[in-house]
């Protein structure tokens, strides 16, 4: 129980930290984003009243007479209500709506790709570590090339080969625009087809890291006494590999999930850009290009919350896979 409480408290602190960063970054930077924003809105013929101005000032700072503390709490209040303001590039759509539309794409893409990468990476790493010194293990250093490839460059190559040259998969987009989004077979299979290359990009570039980590931990774990016991017990190789070696070797990978997820999220933002994927990463960049600060900050917060949520989930799972944490940590 203590473990869970500690974890919850930590992620609550992390969330607060992200919100606070979000509050201070625009205020610490040179320039006046509110003016830029309002000028843009006026260009589009929007009638900006004082209430809209105040909302933006709360989000981004500006030359108000309000004290920083007061702004800060008003800002926190807005965030907790999910009130991220109005998007400039999608005027007059609220930021929250823009995010809601694009978030599922990214969650599905990154979620499935990460899951596949973890499974493929740890699976191969397990076997490579177990069969240490064989041809399979000798291939491990080669995977570092994949890990060092920039995501988007790999995406470009995949597009060049599989979309432009071979024409197996569509060049860009998230689904066939002739179809209307919905839970029907035609749309889902189209979304799947469009998702293959982006997902493949993420899987190929991130599986290597999992593989290497798992392989090295396998090698360490195989020298442990309980593996020797398992051999003396006459268990099958398969059982020793999975339940005595891999089951222990995977723990550091799980514990280090946060680091890996950071890389994946970063990579997928850029990957979405290459594929013009209708996810939150493309949306973020569009916001950046249009100086749509409100949308940008909203997206940053949502990504942060999603990442924190995923990490919390993994931490809770960790308590299930490692019985020791609940008593010691």
């Amino acid at each position, binding site marked *: 129980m203590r473990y869970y409480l500690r974890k919850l408290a930590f992620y609550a*602190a992390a969330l607060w*930290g*992200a919100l606070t960063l*979000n509050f201070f970054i*625009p205020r610490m*930077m040179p320039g006046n*984003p509110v003016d830029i924003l309002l000028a843009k809105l006026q260009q589009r013929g929007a009638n900006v009243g004082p209430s809209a101005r105040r909302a933006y000032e709360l989000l981004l700072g500006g030359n108000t007479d309000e004290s920083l503390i007061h702004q800060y709490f008003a800002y926190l209040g807005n965030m907790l209500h999910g009130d991220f303001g109005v998007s400039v590039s999608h005027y007059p759509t609220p930021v929250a709506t823009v995010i809601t539309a694009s978030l599922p794409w990214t969650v599905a893409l990154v979620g499935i790709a990460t899951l596949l990468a973890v499974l493929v990476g740890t699976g191969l790493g397990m076997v490579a570590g177990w069969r*240490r*010194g064989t041809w399979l293990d000798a291939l491990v250093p080669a995977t*570092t*090339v994949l*890990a*060092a*490839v*920039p995501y*988007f*460059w*790999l995406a*470009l*190559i995949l597009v*060049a080969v599989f979309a*432009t040259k071979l024409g197996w998969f569509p060049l860009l987009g998230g689904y066939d625009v002739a179809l209307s989004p919905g839970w029907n077979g035609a749309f889902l299979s189209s979304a799947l087809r469009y998702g293959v290359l982006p997902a493949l990009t993420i899987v190929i570039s991130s599986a290597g890291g999992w593989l290497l980590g798992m392989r*090295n931990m396998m*090698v*360490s774990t195989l*020298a*442990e*006494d*309980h593996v*020797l*016991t398992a*051999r*003396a*017990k*006459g*268990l099958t190789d398969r059982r020793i590999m999975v339940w*005595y070696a891999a089951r*222990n070797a995977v*723990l550091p990978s799980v514990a280090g999930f946060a*680091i890996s*997820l*950071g890389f994946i*999220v*970063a*990579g997928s*933002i*850029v990957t979405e*850009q290459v594929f013009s994927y209708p996810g939150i990463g493309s949306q*973020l*960049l569009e916001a*950046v290009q249009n*100086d749509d600060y409100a949308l*940008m900050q909203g997206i*940053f917060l949502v*990504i*942060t919350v999603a990442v924190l949520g995923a*990490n919390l989930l993994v931490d809770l799972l960790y308590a299930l896979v*490692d019985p*020791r944490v609940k*008593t010691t940590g």
Partner: protein
Amino acid sequence: MTNLNADLAAPRPRSGRRVLPRWSPKLAIGVGIIVVIGLWGLAGPVLVGDPDAIRDIGLTAPSGSHLLGTTQTGQDVLAQLAYATRGSLSIGVLVGIMATLLSALFGIVGSYVGGLVDEAFSLLSNLMLVIPGLPLVIVISAFVPASARGSWTIAVVLAITGWAGSARVLRAQTLSLRNRDYIQAARVAGEKRWRVIGVELLPNLLPLLASQFVFTVIGAILSETGLSFLGLGAANSATLGTMLNYAQNGFALQRGAWWWFVPPGLIIALFGCGLALVNFSIDEIINPRLRDIPRRERGNRRREPRPAERLDDGAVLDDGAVLDNGAVLTVRHLSVTYRTENPVHAVRDVSLVLRRGEILGLVGESGCGKTTLAYAINRLHRPPAEVTSGSITLHDRDGDDLDVLAFDRDELRAFRWDRLSMVFQGAMNALNPVLTIRAQLDDVLTTHRPAMSRGERHERCAEALRLVGVDPRRLKAYPHELSGGMRQRVMIAMALLLEPQVVLLDEPTTALDVVVQRGILRELLRLRTALGFAVLFITHDLPLMLEVSDRIAVMRDGRIVEEATAEQIAAEPRHPYTRHLLDSFPSLLGERGAFIRAGEDERGEAARPPAAAPDGGIAAEEVR
């Protein structure tokens, strides 16, 4: 961690702590790639022409005059590549240095100082770690006006968002180093804090720092490339990312201009690969287990039993002991060698007979080869250890003689634990920490007795625990929830689960305190009488063996130097080494509390242990 393997480990030439990685093909390739790309970044811009010169020959494929072709506006791709490589490398190294300094500050200093500072630093780095870096960098860059976005700004932002992972790794390592003896000694000796950190701590952290530096450099180059590709990089800078950005915006992909977008990515990938390969070698310094590439165990090699090794009735062994039909295990002329550069003959020509139901003590000082012998009997030795000659025969209950060294993989598996089980030295580590006691008992049965039903298995496991005085409710427990003595009892229960004919005990109680030791030994003796298995008891504790065993074999330098009944050993030790061993234990009763008195011919009575300590069996053990 593995005291159990201490006896097994082949002696390695002692060297000081390694700071330089060992030369290997991996390292050579890695260093080669880094040097080539580094030189290209340094010297390339001098060799190539002006990267910005515009020609009216847009987007031409590689040719003699433009080795990597030209861009849309006729700029030479090779020239751009040289400048971009320089740009990317310098920003990568810059960020690497800054982030490593930050992580050293937060990771090493924090954990060394300890207390509240450490708590705060650690919380900070954990927070920075879970907040996604690139989105943060993008947001920060977006707020900085493009005109103010110089290389330094980008580098600082990348360093601030990239140090946390390393700090966490460094902290963990510092915490473990901090408690090592030599650091403690330096602290006690009153050395100044900065001196302890700088002179004692840092050199040991160096490999890890180097490895983290390598990671941050790769990470920084990748992040910068991503940022520049998105058009958020430093203004007026030329990096591989900006090159790719121009390629993307110039529709290089759509127009099939592979020479424009392939080389920049390839350079990053190769450079990252080079750094990762170097990192492999650094990792091997940090974690020596990764270093030795073992030769594969040839588990399915089958050797035909040689007729000469077959034991017929009444064979006479070296020491004159006559083998009667009651033998359960016969080892003949067994030799085990570690095939290292200087081969170590750990077991030399050992012959032993273990009779049904008896306790044979195998006594010797550490390093004498007794554990190697035990492992070889179960064929648990791994390369470079190898059985070079001899035979091991198990005389099965139903009359068959099993040649252990001739088993193939499956036969060996079926033999282990069913005929011969083992209790290891380190009860702490011999159990799998993430499986329940029940799962670890149960898998023995599912493997060796597939016909048993779930209920039968459960009953059998519970019964085995009861046998060793552990409450069957403990089946649900994980190893860390049990005390050391309790764990060793569980190991014994596990060893007896299949009612084996031979149980090898490898210093089973060494790690336990005396009272618990006594209780467990008593229990073992009782079970031996009840179940009738034979015991090969390996220990350095001769007095203990005099007390519990029927016969004793004394081992030294891989050879059995004396074998006799416990009484004979106690009364008339024949070999000088046996006498030496007997004398090296202080007597609690006799006034001659003798330590090593070489040369004196003393009889063993004085070294007899006191009468068994008052029973401190199970009652003394408490569950943690």
